[in-house]
């Protein structure tokens, strides 16, 4: 008997078997069927027949399912219904579980991987902070983009660009060219002054003298006082908060009178904020140039064009081009003076710190060097990471095969690998932030900076970190993700963990790159170290040991001969001398000297220095010809005698220089050459041997030198101090050793040197971590082979050789690549130095040797471990 309900139910079951037919659609179809059956029954068709006809009209389940499937695919953005959605949260948990399990099983690898990347990234973060700080120099000046420093292109024997400029040029430019809004001058004081207020007396080294405009052009904000009127009064000065506190404590400094050099009363008219560390010019006291000119006999100097010790700045009107102005200035000089021996050149102050002139290059060279090193380390760390990740992935071909068999698509495998590498990178990043914070104090000590790791306040650093993480995760993850996932599952399961030659080849290339970089870094560091050492220890032509010097302030000069005799009475003092030049820098030079037969085309820049009769003996500079100033001769400065160095003698010409007469317009008189001294370099900032004239003008002595006995130095110094205080009451006795003062100049060189050494060390460390990982991986791969060899009678040394052969060959290859590149780069770097050391081949041999040795130790450690294991264990290993 036909049962309609049962038949409809069966028909529905058939439809429900089709995956793409949703319940709603099935309900639609069922009602449709019932309607059709009812209609047919009304026409008088028997129930069973009506059902059959209605089913035929509605259509077959498969056809309907296929049509509905198409609609659903269309609706789901063309994804077929049996494909899972793109993001499946449930699987993430699975990935995480697998990744963590991998970390747990392979603790060693994971540690090496994360440690290498963390150390590398930390180096890079610190270097980046350093570079950021260097680039931030002077940027706090609000008008920085319009401020230009006036330098001079001087054509003497060779063209050179000189920064401290002549004071007259600023007002002149302002007068001549409408583009110049204002000008201001600094004298970056090398004159230490004695400042006293009530009972507080200190020698102040950080004194600048400047035009009143300085306070408006630059951003040295005053916390007290008016920048518009401050310094207009020549007997006024501005103090930094730090110094104001030192003298006045909690008193209000404004309007107080301090005494300068125990002579000149000056009024405090302003207190400025302490100048930040990233300022090229840092001073604590600013005095008006006018005061300096009036009281130190420099009024003519200030208007003139001869004293090249001034920092002259101009501020241009908005929108004017300094290139155009430079051209105009040159045209003006050419049309006015008919020569281009001395042309003022404007250079942006914003780049002044980076492009400082001087030996060893400006800071931009250092930034390049550091940037290079950072990039190297980063590359090494990333290669390490990639290498280990790919090596480890080799072990997983079986897992991938299984996943594929069970139904994973290639995409899922790719996702899984990316997820794992991203997780590793993420862990490293977090550790990097901690490690960088931990290392920052050490790094600050090394770099003499006060850097802070304000990640949130430093979006560019944050962005950089994120970018690097992404790149590392992508590149390190890509190889296993894209390559491993492409294999046929059957092959992967059958061939198991064997390292395919293609993969091994890729790793070899990476190892070679990594070691080339490391060897290059060691060689580079050694080369840089040697050069910097060379500069620091080269023979300057005089002996600075046991020389103590102090400033000849107060009454010392008035009775110089008496003072000298008093000092000589002290048993420990062997020689006493005086000079006008700061021993390790600063000098006065000019092109104005004239002599008979001087080539008018030639305008050499000649340095002059006033010294006393014991200078040569105290400094142990050899006399080449003639005689030195007579000790019992005329000390008044009117003898008209001078000595010249060999370079100057060369400029004077072929004739015997003795008794040649030279005219010095600055003093307005003639001088007679009485002797020639050997060339010497007061300091390495001298650009080679330069012409020098020594004269004896006691009123310009500024420093007194004592050559003392190396025995009993403290006792001697105590005696010197008591003599000093007796002769010069009211002035503090502040002395320095010349060699120590000389060393200070090399602080930055020393910093670069130790930084290089550290970085090279880190590079090697990271490379070796990687090599260690690879070596142990290699040994693990060959566990079975080693077992079989041992069973067959192979000895431990032979197995070690077998295992080490490959990697050592790679390190050797890396040497061959690294040497020429490092040599070339070193040569280029050395070009920035005037006194260059020879790059000898031994540093390359040494660098290669070190890398080789470390690699060998790392590899053989692992190899020996593998080789000495019992064959039974290794054969059973699986």
């Amino acid at each position, binding site marked *: 008997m036909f049962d309609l309900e049962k038949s409809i139910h069966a028909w529905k079951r058939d439809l429900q078997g089709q995956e793409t037919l949703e319940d*709603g*659609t099935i*309900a*639609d*179809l069922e*009602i*449709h069927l*019932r*309607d*059709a059956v009812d*209609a047919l029954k009304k026409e008088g068709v028997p129930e069973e027949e009506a059902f059959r006809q209605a089913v035929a*009209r*509605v*259509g077959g389940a498969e*056809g*309907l399912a296929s*049509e*509905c499937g*198409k*609609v659903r695919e*269309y*609706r789901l953005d063309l994804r077929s219904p049996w494909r899972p959605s793109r993001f499946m949260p449930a699987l993430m948990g699975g990935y995480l579980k697998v990744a963590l399990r991998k970390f747990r099983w392979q603790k060693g690898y994971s540690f090496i991987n994360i440690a290498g990347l963390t150390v590398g990234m930390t180096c890079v973060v610190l270097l980046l902070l350093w570079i950021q700080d260097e680039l931030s120099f002077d940027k706090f000046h609000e008008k920085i983009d319009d401020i230009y420093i006036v330098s001079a292109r001087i054509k003497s024997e060779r063209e050179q660009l000189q920064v401290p400029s002549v004071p007259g040029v600023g007002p002149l430019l302002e007068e001549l060219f409408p583009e110049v809004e204002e000008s201001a001058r600094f004298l970056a004081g090398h004159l230490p002054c004695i400042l006293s207020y009530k009972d507080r007396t200190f020698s102040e080294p950080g004194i600048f003298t400047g035009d009143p405009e300085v306070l408006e052009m630059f951003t040295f904000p005053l916390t007290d006082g008016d920048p518009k009127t401050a310094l207009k009064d020549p007997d006024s000065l501005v103090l930094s908060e730090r110094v104001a506190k030192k003298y006045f404590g909690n008193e209000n400094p404004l309007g107080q009178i301090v005494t300068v050099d125990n002579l000149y009363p000056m009024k405090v008219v302003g207190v400025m904020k302490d100048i930040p560390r990233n300022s090229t010019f840092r001073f604590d006291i600013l005095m008006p140039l006018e005061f300096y000119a009036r009281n130190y006999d420099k009024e003519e100097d200030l208007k003139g064009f001869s004293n090249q010790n001034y920092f002259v700045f101009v501020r241009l009107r908005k929108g004017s081009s300094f290139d155009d102005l430079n051209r105009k200035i040159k045209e003006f000089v050419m049309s006015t003076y008919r020569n281009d021996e001395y042309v003022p050149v404007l250079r942006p102050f914003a780049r002044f710190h980076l492009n400082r002139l001087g030996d060893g290059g400006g800071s931009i060279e250092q930034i390049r060097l550091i940037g290079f090193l950072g990039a190297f380390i980063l590359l090494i760390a990333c290669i390490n990471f990639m290498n280990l990740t790919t090596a480890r992935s080799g072990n997983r071909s079986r897992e991938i095969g299984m996943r594929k068999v069970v139904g994973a698509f290639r995409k899922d495998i790719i996702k899984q690998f990316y997820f794992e590498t991203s997780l590793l990178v993420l862990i490293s990043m977090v550790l990097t932030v901690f490690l960088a914070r931990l290392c920052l104090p050490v790094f600050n000590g090394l770099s003499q900076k006060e850097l802070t790791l304000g990640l949130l306040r430093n979006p560019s650093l944050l962005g950089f970190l994120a970018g690097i993480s992404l790149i590392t995760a992508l590149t390190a993850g890509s190889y296993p993700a894209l390559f491993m996932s492409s294999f046929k599952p059957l092959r992967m399961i059958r061939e198991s963990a064997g390292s395919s030659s293609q993969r091994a080849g890729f790793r070899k290339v990476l190892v070679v790159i990594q070691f080339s970089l490391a060897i290059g870094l060691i060689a580079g560091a050694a080369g840089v170290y040697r050069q910097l050492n060379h500069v620091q220890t080269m023979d300057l032509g005089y002996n600075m040991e046991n020389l103590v010097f102090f400033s000849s302030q107060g009454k010392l000069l008035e009775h110089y001969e008496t003072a000298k005799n008093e000092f000589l009475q002290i048993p420990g003092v062997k020689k006493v001398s005086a000079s006008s030049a700061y021993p390790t820098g600063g000098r006065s030079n000019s092109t104005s000297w004239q002599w008979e037969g001087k080539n008018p085309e030639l305008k050499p820049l000649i340095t002059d220095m006033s010294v006393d009769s014991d200078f040569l003996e105290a400094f142990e500079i050899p006399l080449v010809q003639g005689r030195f100033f007579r000790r019992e001769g005329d000390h008044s400065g009117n003898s008209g005698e001078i000595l010249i160095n060999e370079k100057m003698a060369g400029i004077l010409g072929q004739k015997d220089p003795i008794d040649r007469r030279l005219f010095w317009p600055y003093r307005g008189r003639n001088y007679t050459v009485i002797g020639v001294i050997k060339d010497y370099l007061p300091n390495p900032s001298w650009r080679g041997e330069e012409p020098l004239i020594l004269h004896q003008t006691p009123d310009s002595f500024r420093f007194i030198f004592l050559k003392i006995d190396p025995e009993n130095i403290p006792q001697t110094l105590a005696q010197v101090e008591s003599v000093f205080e007796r002769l010069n009451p009211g002035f503090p006795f502040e002395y320095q050793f010349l060699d120590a003062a000389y060393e200070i100049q090399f602080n930055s060189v020393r910093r670069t040197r130790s930084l290089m050494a550290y970085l090279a060390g880190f590079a090697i460390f990271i490379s070796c971590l990687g090599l260690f990982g690879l070596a142990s991986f290699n040994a693990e791969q060959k566990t079975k082979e080693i077992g079989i060899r041992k069973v067959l009678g192979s000895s431990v040394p032979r197995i070690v050789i077998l295992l080490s052969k490959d990697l050592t060959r790679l390190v050797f290859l890396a040497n061959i690549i690294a040497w020429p590149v490092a040599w070339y780069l070193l040569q280029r770097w050395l070009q920035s130095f005037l006194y260059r050391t020879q790059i000898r081949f031994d540093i390359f041999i040494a660098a290669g040797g070190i890398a080789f040795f470390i690699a060998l130790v790392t590899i053989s450690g692992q190899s020996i471990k593998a080789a000495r294991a019992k064959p039974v264990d290794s054969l059973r290993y699986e």
Partner: protein
Amino acid sequence: MISRTLMAASTRPIILAILSRGEDYGYSLIQKVKGFSGGNIDWTEGMIYPVLQRMEVDGLISSQWKMSADKRPRRYFRITERGREELAAELTGWGNVWKALNHFAKPLRAEE
């Protein structure tokens, strides 16, 4: 009888046209077409549902389950604004096709 391709092309416009007169459900749509065409347009009845689904995805019609007078729940379809636009476009299209077909199917006259 009409060809399969013509049927495929005409299904959607015809459904839109019927729905433009008011809401309706699947079985009724089929009956109306069949009744009007005298059986010349003969759809496989079940196949109307995937078409309706697709039209709904495309936003031409919307649907709602309702209890009808004979106490059966039915899914009623209603034309949307976008459906009306589509219908207008289809009418123009079909009109053009019809004009061209009609025109060229006539025997050639002397002046042409």
